[in-house]
């Protein structure tokens, strides 16, 4: 028996079409803005010789995360340079950095709102469930009509894919501030803003940073997938390797992603843990 099919796909298409038309100006502005940012950062990273960049990262790793992470950083990045993967690695690093910055800039305030308002929580959290269970590839499709093929579309879908932990862990971090500390802040007559900025947010920082760490990891995995819609970098290398059936080249690029992920992970994890009281 045939029942009439709900034209869900058509509705979504026409909704997207309307959105694309309506916001063409805005998307073009955002697009060129982000593109400028990407170019500037990639050029900035490529301008000094690679050993300078490797040295800088190693120094940061050493200061933040200790000698072992520093040794791993110098060997790992040195290997990538040697494998002729320096340029795609810097491209991927740029995409991850910019996508993470945008995701955190949007996600943290949303997380705060969801923590403080029950209604906001009821709206935001189901959307997060939706965002996280939707197959990541689906985000690639609407990105193209909005921003065209290329790195901006990649960043758009990466931001959507990587933002949920930034929101979730901000909310969690604020909600798990011990209630007696919140009560103490109230008892001394704190306004809501004073309570938030002097007590709740500072105490939530380790959890928020754990969210940032997860966002970075998700962003890294997504910029590889986003190679399908024109993101360059290590993902692009993997994508080319798939098309040409070159397992060795694909593995090299994949290894580069792993090395980059481990360096970023160790450094941000350490930042999350190492908060000193003032």
């Amino acid at each position, binding site marked *: 028996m045939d029942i009439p099919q709900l034209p869900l796909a058509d509705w979504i298409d026409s909704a997207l079409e309307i959105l694309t038309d309506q916001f063409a100006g805005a998307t073009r502005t955002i697009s060129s803005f982000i593109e400028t940012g990407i170019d500037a950062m990639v050029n900035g990273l490529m301008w000094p010789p690679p050993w300078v960049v490797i040295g800088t990262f190693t120094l940061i790793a050493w200061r933040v995360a200790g000698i072992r992470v520093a040794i791993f950083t110098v060997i790992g990045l040195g290997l990538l340079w040697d494998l002729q993967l320096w340029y795609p690695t810097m491209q991927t690093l740029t995409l991850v950095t910019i996508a993470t910055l945008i995701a955190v800039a949007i996600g943290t305030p949303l997380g705060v709102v969801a923590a403080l308002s029950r209604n906001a929580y009821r709206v935001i959290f189901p959307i997060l469930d939706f965002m996280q269970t939707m197959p990541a590839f689906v985000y690639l499709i609407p990105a193209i009509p909005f921003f065209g093929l290329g790195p901006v579309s990649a960043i758009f879908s990466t931001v959507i894919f990587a933002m949920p932990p930034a929101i979730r862990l901000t909310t969690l971090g604020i909600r798990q501030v011990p209630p007696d500390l919140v*009560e103490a*802040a109230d008892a001394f007559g*704190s306004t809501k803003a*004073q309570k938030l900025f*002097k007590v709740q947010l500072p105490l939530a920082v380790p959890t928020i940073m754990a969210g940032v760490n997860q966002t970075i990891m998700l962003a890294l995995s997504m910029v590889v997938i986003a190679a399908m819609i024109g993101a360059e970098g290590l993902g692009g290398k993997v994508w080319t390797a798939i098309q040409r059936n070159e397992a060795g080249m694909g593995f090299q690029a994949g290894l580069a992603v792993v090395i980059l992920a481990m360096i970023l992970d160790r450094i941000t994890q350490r930042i999350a843990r190492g*908060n000193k009281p003032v």
Partner: protein
Amino acid sequence: MSSDQAPKIAVRSLTKVFGSEPEEALALLTKGLTKQQIYEQTGQAVGVANATFDAFEGETLVIMGLSGSGKSSLIRCINRLNEPTAGEILIDGEDITRLHQKDLLSLRRKRFGMVFQHFALFPHRTIRRNTEYGLEIQGVAPEERRDRALKALKRVGLEGWEDAVPGQLSGGMQQRVGLARALAVDPDILLMDEAFSALDPLIRRDMQQELVALQSEMHKTIVFITHDLDEALFLGNRIVLMKDARIEQIGTAEEILSSPATPYVERFVEEVDKSKVLSVSAVMHAPSTVAYPTDGPRTVLRKMEEHGFSLLCVVDPDHTHRGIVRDEAALASAQRGEKSIRGIIEPGIPPVAPDAPLRDLVPVLAEAPMPAPVVDEGGKLLGVVVRASLLRGLATGAPGNGAEPAEKAA
């Protein structure tokens, strides 16, 4: 603390119901249903039912009850951390239940200091920045708040710890910071919610003594919550006893111990088994001076003057207890030109044995403001018990400060 003075805090028919339909619970409360019955019928939890009491300036008012009695809900109504469901709370005559948010914040900032059971120090701030918190949110300039915080820390004996973080301090020290944080804003009213309950017994006793010492300088209005009768007896000028959201009795330590208003209070008081177990000898101390029947009135007056007493115990040369002599009687006797005080000796409080239970003295000392003599089987004076050392003994089970152990003195 006299009753003709206007109360600092006046709580009038205060009721707090936790739940979505407090009206229903209020109606049942006026019908006289208990907290338990109301919860079963409506699902509304009554925190405080129809509480009325006063707290006066300079007074330490202890609200005592077991957990679930509503004492924590009550103290939180006083600064509206809990929004009262019905009733009034007057601070210096102003009903604060009607204040708007802005005035409420300013009331909390300037008038109240609060100390919490589990300290509630901010772990991300140093001791100094914790102490500054109240001043910081008032917008006090950094220099000034630093000075005031350091002063408050000095007051609680934590000089030199200002750059430590709460995690580095012991429980007792953390609660000193809690106290300093509350004192830094120089509030009129200190709300102390089970402030010493999380501390181990020795530290706890130190803190109680220190609070009494601080209070004798500061004359704040302190509302102190505890579940511990010993602590209540030691700290409280007056005690409010709560059970199942209602106030059972309000009174001084003596009143509550000697005439419990309800069977519940009686049972509660019996919990202070120390007063039954503890004997008179534990709290008595040797009189620093005595009068002899052969002494002339002027000699007796000089002895009184030297030691700052208004009456002395009279003993025979072999230390047999004879009675007491008062200063006004000695003065009159001196004016009459009498040679000895034989004629003006009064019996005073009947002597007690050193192994008599301490509790027997409670009604006696509540009545008469004079020392109770402790005598041995032969009627010889061993020592005296004064009201302060009795209460101290009841509160802590140990002799009072400055009193020498009886055996040594005798």
